[in-house]
C-alpha cells in the first residue's frame, strides 16, 4: 500500500469575527509527496506552510480541495483516524505522564496489550537513544531529549505519514544540526513518508528529498535542494534561498541555448532557459560565483565599498557601474582583506548565471 | 494619575472632617424598624435642631451591643423595644435614670421604679394570618395559643429568635407567666414543629406572612397592622382568647453616654403630644392621654390581656433565653 501524500487544489480561508476579515492562508496548493520521501515546506512565517501541514493532519478542514494518502481520500476523515503523527514545535509532551507513558500513549489508545506495549516502548527508546529514562517526567529532560521523546512517540504508532512542525526551532544551534541529521537518518531507515515544515533554509537543504517553497499561501517552486538553489524560478525563491545579486536586464537575442542579455554594465551571454527576445529578466549572480582579480583584469572594474570578515570567508561589496555587488571570497590563510576604496577587477563565468522573470515589464 | 490622587485626598480629608462639624448630634440605637424610625427622627430634628445619628438593631441586639460597649458607650439613647428588655438592661447596668417632667401621669407599669427607663407606647401580641393561606388550607385563623399547635399550620408559622427580638421574648415571657415555666417550654417544643423559621427581627414575620412565604406571623398588633393590612397585605389579625402578653415600649438613657442632655430632650420629646400623635402612622397606642389613637389600632381594652409582669420578665431574661436555646436548640 502506498503512503504517498497527494494534495489537490487545497485552499484555506480563515474568516474573521463576523466575516469582517478574510485571510486566504493557503491558495490552490497541489503537491505530491512520494512514498517514503521527505518533503520540506519552506517559507517565511505566514506563508501558509503550517496550515498545509495541519490540513494533512486533520486539524484544519480545507475550504476547498482534497487530501489523499495513497489512493484514499482523507479530506473528511477525523484527525484521530488518519494515522499521521505530528512532531510539534513545542514537542507537545504530556507533562503529567512519564516518558514511558508519553511514548506508549498511542499504543494504549489502540489497546495494544501491556507486554507488547512495554516491549515496543523500550525498543523505541533504544532507537532514539534514551534507554533508561522511561520513568522520568518530561520536565526532567533536556530540550534535545524531549525532542527525541516526541519523535519516539510519533514513530511508535507506525504512522503512514510523519509530520514535523518546526520541530527544532526551540533547540540551540549545535543541537539543531545534530538532531536534523538524526531525523534524516531515522526517516531514511524507516522509510516513512514525511512532510517537514520549517523556515530555516539550511535545515531544508540538509534534510529534504524535495523542497517546496511557499509564499503568501501559494507554492512558488518545487524541486530538489540543488534545483531550488541553482535554478530558482522566481525572484522570491532566489532571494529566500541563499544570497544573490540581482541585475535588471532585457533579453536582446537568443542564440541556441544562450540568451544575450543587456544590463547596465554591458551585455552577457547566459543559458537561455526558455526566455525569448524582449523578455524582462533578472540576472542572478550568486556571491560565490564571483571572483576578484587585480585592477585592470577581469570582465568588469570596480572598487571595494565594504568588507565583512567572517573567519573562513570574506564578503565584499564591490561598486560596479553604480551598483553594489556582493562577492564571497574564500579567505586564504594569512592574507589581509582588501580595504575599502581599492580598485579591483570582477570575474565570473557567464554559464553560472541564471535568469529569472522580471515582472511589471512584460 | 496625580490629579486623581489629589481628588481622592480631598475626599479623604472631607470624610474625616464631617463628624467634627455641627456639635449638636445625638447618637442612638433604635429597635424600631428603619421605615418607622424615618417617621419620627426627622420630626425630632426639625423640632429641636438636634441632629440624630442612629443604628437600627433588634432590641436583643441593642442590649447585646450596649453590654459589649459598656466600657465605651457609643450612644446616649436606646429608643424602642419592650420594657422587659429595658429592665434586663437596667439589670446589666447599662442605663442611667431620668425622670421626665410630665403634666400627666405615666402608669406605674409604664416606667421603671427608679426611672431607668420610661414607657411611651403600648402594644399587644397577636397572630397575623395570610388570608389566602387560610382559604386555601381551609382552616380558620388561630384564636388561642393551642390553635397554633394544629397540624394544619405545620411549617407555616414564623416568629423571631427570643434572644434577638424583644417581640419574641415577650411571647416567651407571656407563655411562662401564663403556663408556668416547664409547661411553657413543653408548649414551645410542640410549637417548634410548626415553625417554618426564626427571624432576627420581631416584625419580620409580618411581611413574610403578608407575602405568603409563611401562613402565620406571631408579632405585635401594631406591626401586624402597619406592616400587614395597612400596607395592603391580606393579613387577618387575631388574638388568643386565653389572654395575651403585651409590651410597654421603652426608652433608656445610656450610662456614660456621650450626650446626656440631648438624650433627655429626646425623652421629653418622645412623650410629647406631638411625638405621640406621630405614632398613629404605625398604629402604636400612645401613653399620653392627650394623644390620638389611630383608627384600627388595638387598644388595651379591646383584647384580653394577661397580668403581665414585665419586671419579672426582664429579670428572668438571661435565664429563660439560655433554657430556650438549650431546649429548642436554635
Amino acid at each position: 500500500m502506498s503512503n504517498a501524500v497527494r494534495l489537490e487544489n487545497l485552499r484555506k480561508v480563515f474568516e474573521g469575527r463576523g466575516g469582517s476579515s478574510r485571510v486566504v492562508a493557503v491558495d490552490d496548493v497541489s503537491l505530491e509527496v512520494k512514498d517514503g520521501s521527505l518533503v520540506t515546506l519552506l517559507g517565511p512565517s505566514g506563508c501558509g506552510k503550517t496550515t498545509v501541514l495541519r490540513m494533512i493532519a486533520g486539524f484544519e478542514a480545507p475550504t476547498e480541495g482534497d487530501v489523499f494518502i495513497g489512493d484514499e481520500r482523507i479530506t473528511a476523515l477525523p484527525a484521530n483516524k488518519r494515522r499521521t503523527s505530528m512532531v510539534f514545535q513545542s514537542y507537545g509532551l504530556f507533562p503529567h505522564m512519564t516518558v514511558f507513558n508519553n511514548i506508549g500513549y498511542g499504543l494504549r489508545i489502540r489497546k495494544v496489550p501491556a507486554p507488547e506495549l512495554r516491549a515496543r516502548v523500550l525498543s523505541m527508546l533504544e532507537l532514539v537513544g534514551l534507554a533508561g529514562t522511561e520513568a522520568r517526567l518530561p520536565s526532567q529532560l533536556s530540550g534535545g531529549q524531549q525532542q527525541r521523546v516526541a519523535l519516539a512517540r510519533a514513530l511508535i504508532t507506525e504512522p503512514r505519514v510523519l509530520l514535523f512542525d518546526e520541530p527544532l526551532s526551540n533547540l540551540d544551534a549545535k543541537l539543531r544540526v545534530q538532531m536534523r541529521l538524526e531525523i534524516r537518518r531515522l526517516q531514511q531507515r524507516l522509510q516513512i513518508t514525511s512532510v517537514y515544515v520549517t523556515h530555516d533554509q539550511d535545515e531544508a537543504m540538509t534534510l529534504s528529498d524535495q523542497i517546496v517553497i511557499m509564499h503568501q499561501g501559494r507554492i512558488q517552486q518545487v524541486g530538489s535542494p540543488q534545483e531550488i538553489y541553482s535554478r530558482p524560478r522566481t525572484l522570491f525563491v532566489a532571494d529566500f534561498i541563499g544570497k544573490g545579486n540581482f541585475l535588471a536586464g532585457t533579453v536582446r537575442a537568443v542564440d541556441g541555448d544562450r540568451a544575450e542579455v543587456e544590463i547596465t554594465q554591458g551585455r552577457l551571454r547566459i543559458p537561455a532557459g526558455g526566455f525569448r527576445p524582449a523578455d524582462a529578466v533578472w540576472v542572478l549572480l550568486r556571491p560565490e560565483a564571483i571572483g576578484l582579480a587585480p585592477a585592470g583584469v577581469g570582465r568588469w572594474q570596480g572598487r571595494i565599498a565594504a568588507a565583512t570578515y567572517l573567519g573562513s570567508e570574506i564578503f565584499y561589496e564591490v561598486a560596479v557601474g553604480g551598483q553594489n555587488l556582493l562577492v564571497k571570497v574564500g579567505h586564504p590563510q594569512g592574507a589581509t582583506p582588501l580595504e575599502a576604496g581599492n580598485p579591483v577587477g570582477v570575474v565570473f563565468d557567464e554559464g553560472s548565471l541564471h535568469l529569472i522573470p522580471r515582472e511589471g515589464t512584460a | 494619575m496625580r490629579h486623581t490622587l489629589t481628588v481622592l485626598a480631598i475626599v479623604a480629608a472631607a470624610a474625616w472632617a464631617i463628624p467634627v462639624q455641627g456639635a449638636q448630634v445625638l447618637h442612638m440605637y433604635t429597635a424600631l424598624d428603619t421605615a418607622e424610625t424615618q417617621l419620627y427622627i426627622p420630626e425630632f430634628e426639625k423640632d429641636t435642631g438636634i441632629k440624630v445619628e442612629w443604628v437600627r438593631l433588634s432590641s436583643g441586639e441593642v442590649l447585646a451591643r450596649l453590654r459589649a460597649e459598656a466600657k465605651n458607650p457609643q450612644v446616649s439613647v436606646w429608643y424602642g423595644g419592650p420594657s422587659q428588655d429595658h429592665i434586663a438592661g437596667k439589670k446589666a447596668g447599662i442605663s442611667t435614670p431620668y425622670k421626665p417632667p410630665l403634666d400627666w401621669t405615666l402608669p406605674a407599669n409604664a416606667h421603671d421604679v427608679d426611672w431607668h427607663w420610661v414607657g411611651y407606647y403600648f402594644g399587644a401580641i397577636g397572630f397575623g394570618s395570610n388570608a389566602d393561606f387560610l382559604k386555601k388550607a381551609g382552616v380558620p385563623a388561630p384564636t388561642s395559643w393551642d390553635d397554633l399547635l394544629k397540624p394544619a399550620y405545620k411549617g407555616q408559622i414564623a416568629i423571631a429568635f427570643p434572644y434577638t427580638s424583644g417581640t419574641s421574648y415577650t411571647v416567651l415571657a407571656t407563655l411562662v407567666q401564663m403556663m408556668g415555666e416547664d409547661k411553657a417550654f413543653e408548649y414551645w417544643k410542640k410549637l417548634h414543629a410548626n415553625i417554618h423559621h426564626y427571624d432576627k427581627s420581631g416584625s419580620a414575620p409580618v411581611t413574610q406572612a403578608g407575602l405568603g412565604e409563611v401562613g402565620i406571623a406571631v408579632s405585635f398588633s401594631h406591626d401586624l397592622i402597619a406592616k400587614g393590612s395597612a400596607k395592603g397585605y391580606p393579613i387577618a389579625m387575631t388574638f388568643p382568647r386565653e389572654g395575651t402578653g403585651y409590651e410597654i415600649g421603652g426608652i433608656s438613657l445610656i450610662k456614660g453616654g456621650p450626650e446626656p442632655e440631648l438624650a433627655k430632650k429626646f425623652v421629653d420629646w418622645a412623650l410629647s403630644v406631638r411625638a405621640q400623635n406621630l405614632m398613629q402612622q404605625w398604629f402604636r397606642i400612645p401613653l399620653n392621654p392627650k394623644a390620638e389613637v389611630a383608627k384600627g389600632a388595638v387598644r388595651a381594652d379591646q383584647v384580653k390581656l394577661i397580668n403581665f409582669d414585665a419586671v419579672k420578665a426582664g429579670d428572668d431574661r438571661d435565664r429563660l433565653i439560655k433554657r430556650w436555646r438549650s431546649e429548642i436548640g436554635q
Partner: protein
Amino acid sequence: MNELRKILREPVLAAAIGVIAVSLFLFVIYPLFKVFQMSVVEDGRFTLHVYRDLLDKPFERRPIYNSLILGALVAVAGTAVGYLFAFAIARADVPWKRFFRLIATFPIISPPFVLSLAAILLLGRKGFITRMLFQGQWDPHIYGLRGLVLVETIAFFPTAFLIMLGILQAIDPALEESSLNLGATRWQVFRTVTLPLSVPGLASSLLVLFVESLADFGNPIILSGNFHVLSVQAYLHITGMVDFGGGAALAVILLFPTLAAFLLQKYWVSRKSYVTVTGKPSPARLSVDPFTRRLLFVLCLGVTGLILLLYGTVIFGSFVTLWGANYTLTIKHYASVFHIGGRYLRDTLILASVATPITGILGMVIAFLVVRKQFVGKGLMDLTSMLTFAVPGTVVGIGYILAFNERPLLLTGTAAIIVLLFIFRNVPVGIRAGVAALQQIDPAIEEAATNLGAGSARTFVTITLPLITPAFFSGLAYGFVRCMTAISAVIFVVSGRWNLITIAILGLVENADMSQAAAFSMVLIAIVLLVLGLIQVGVGRVATSQMGYEAAG
C-alpha cells in the same frame, strides 16, 4: 545580617517595611489573636470550657456539620459550572463567547445577598415560579440547604470559572493535538490530557469555593431558614446573645477548615500545577465535535438563563408596588433609595473611596517589596497580607470589635475602623494584581534606574509605578467592588455615624421589604458598574498615553 545592613542604608525602604510590618501585625494578626484569646481565656485563666460547652450541645454542633456540607456541595457544584463555562469558552469555541464570559463574571460585582433575595422572589412559597409554574402545589423548600447551594453556586462559580479559564488557556494546544494525532478520540483527548491537566486547577477551585462558602454570611442570614451555619451562628452569639466567648469559639472553629483549605491551596495544590498561567492565552486551535459544542452551548445557555432570570426578577421586583399583594409598577422604591437610603449611600461611597486608593497603594508597595526586595520576614509579610483573604469576614469582624474597643486603640464607632477593615480585607487583591504585574516587568528596567543613581523609593515611583499602573487600576476596581458589597465583617463595626448600604439592604430583606431591598440593590449595582466603567476609561487612557509615549520614543 548583610541584608539588614543593606536595608538600613535605604531609610525610605526601611521605614516602609517597618510601617507595613507594624500595620499588618496590628490590623491582621492582633484581631485574630484577640478572637482566639477570647475563646480560651476566662477570668485571666486558660480554659477550654467554652469549646466543651459548645461541642456538648447538639444544636451548637450542627452548624459545624452544616457549614462543611454546604461548603463541600457548593465547591463541587460551583467548580462544575465554572469548568463548564471555562471549557466551553476556551476549548469548545461555542457561539456567544463574550456574552457568556460577561455573564460568568457578573455575580462577582453584585452584593452577595441579592441572589438570595432573587431566590425568594422566584422560588419562595409565593415566588413567581412556585405560583406560576406549579400553582403553589410544590414547595421548592429554598429556605435551607437547597436554596443555599443554589445561590452560593451562582454567587461563587465565577471564581472557579476564572481559575479554570486561566488554566485551560495556558494548556499548550499542541498537547491535545498530539493526543488526537496519536489516534485518541475527542473524548479520549479530554479524559487523558485536558482533564488531568486541569486537575490542579480543579483542586484549587474546589478549595477556594469551599472557603468562600464557609465565609459567606449575606446569603445564609437570609436564606438559611432553620439550617444554621457557622458564620451566622457566630454573629448571633455575639450580637444577639452577648456571648463573646461562644461567638469567638465558633469563629475559631470556622477558621480552622478555612485556613486548612487556604494553606493546602497555597502550598500544595499550586505547586502541583503542570501549567504556568502566564496571562498570555494560547489560542485554542482544536475544537470539539458539533454535537458536544451544541450541548455545551445549551448548558451554558441554561445557566445563563438562570442567572438572568435571578437578576431580572430583582429588577422587576424593584418596580413592584407591594410584592406578593400588589404588582402594579411604580418607581417609588427608587425614590426612597435616595430618601431613606441617601445617607447610607453617601457613607458607603465616602468610606469606599477613602479605603480603595489606600488599599491599592499599600497593595502595590507590598507587592513591590515581596517581589523585588530581600529582607528578613519577607515570607511572613507575604503570608500575613494574604491571610485576610482566607479568614472569613465574620472572624475578622469579631476580631476588630474585640481588639479596638479599648484605649489606646479605641476605634469603635469611628470611620477609621471601617476604613481599616476595608483596607486590610482587600489588600490581598491589590497585592495579587501588583505581583502579577511586577513579574511581567523585567527587573533589568528597575536595575537600570538604580544603576543611574535612583534610590529604592525613587525607582518605585518613577519606574515601577508607571509600569504597573494598569494593574494598579484593576486592583483598585476590584477593591472598590469589594468595599461596596462587603457585609460579613463590617456588620460588626458599623455605627450610627457611619453606616453602609449593604447593611441597610440586609435589614430590608430581613424585614421582607423585598421591593425596597431590590431597588437598593439595583442602585448599588448601578453605582458599582458606573465606577468600574470610569476606572476602565481611566485605564484605557493611561494605556493609550503609554502607547503614545512609546511611539514617540
